[in-house]
């Protein structure tokens, strides 16, 4: 498939509601040591930033969605959101991208 443009995304992965998040609890437990009060519901996840070469934004987002759902998150325990960070370049010539499953 020819790639005419590049699109940069951030995939934010967090534990699903109701899933115990011991890391979040540990962070919350440490807040007292900083003298901070009034912070709760801490959930620790991960953020993955990536660039997708594709013909257009729709195709690029489809790739990001698939990556997020099949690899970057485990749908049993995690939810994800995809954040567009904007096109990194409007045109690219002579490049081809392969999407490997």
């Amino acid at each position, binding site marked *: 498939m020819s790639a005419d443009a590049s699109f940069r995304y951030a995939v934010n992965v967090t534990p699903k509601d109701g*899933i*115990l998040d*011991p*890391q979040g*609890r*540990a962070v919350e437990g440490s807040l007292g040591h900083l003298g901070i009060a009034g912070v709760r519901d801490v959930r620790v996840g991960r953020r993955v930033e990536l660039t997708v070469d594709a013909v257009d934004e729709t195709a690029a987002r489809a790739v990001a969605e698939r990556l997020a759902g099949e*690899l*970057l998150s*485990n749908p*049993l*325990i995690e939810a994800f959101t995809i954040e567009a960070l904007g096109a990194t370049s409007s045109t690219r010539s002579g490049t081809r991208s392969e999407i490997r499953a």
Partner: protein
Amino acid sequence: MSVRIGVVLFPGSNRDIDARNAIEVAGAEPVVLWHEDADLSGVAGVVLPGGFAYGDYLRAGVIARFSPVMRAVSAFAAEGGLVFGICNGFQVLAEAGLVPGALLRNRSVRFVSREASVVAERPDSPFTSLVGGRRPLRLPVAHGEGCYYADEATLDTLERDGQVLFRYVRPDGAVALPGDPANPNGSLRGIAGVANAAGNVAGLMPHPETAVEAILGSDDGLAIIRSFVESAAERARRGPLVGVGGR
């Protein structure tokens, strides 16, 4: 000729030698299966050993799931072949969807390395047939992400269909629920090992393969390894694996 059992070697596997030793102690021939080869060399059963496959990057087991050998393992499992994932191998099977549920970070947020007691909940599975009932087995645990999780409906289904193979127990034999010191990681309903619906693929968090000789501190794991090896041998004797159900 003794039965041949495959042991998959991922980059980062570190219990593969223990698995090979346990298979030998159980009277079978271990065969190393390289992660880049989508070929099982005609083995009668497959062990996914413990370790930190692909450095446990992203999530434990997820990168290994996409390795070439796992395509062959999935096909083998679909034909009824026996597959046994131990510790990190359990995490790989869960990520691959070959056994239900997921392994979350330990509730303590600490890596746990000690002995735990488990019981086999089924006397008749290919992984427990020689264990001799519901007696406590002392096995080592060594993991950071071993907290078994599935939603309530799935847990009910697993219990109803006999897919819960092993549970952590207290010294008095009672199931060690989350929060009990005898439950090393907070696993829901004390679950230490589960099987798929067909019964031919199982994952277990503790390490039976490092508890196969008294000199190692416990030989309680040998009955599990022997159950697996002999079940695989029996299936091999019966001929090609076609549509073999677990029960």
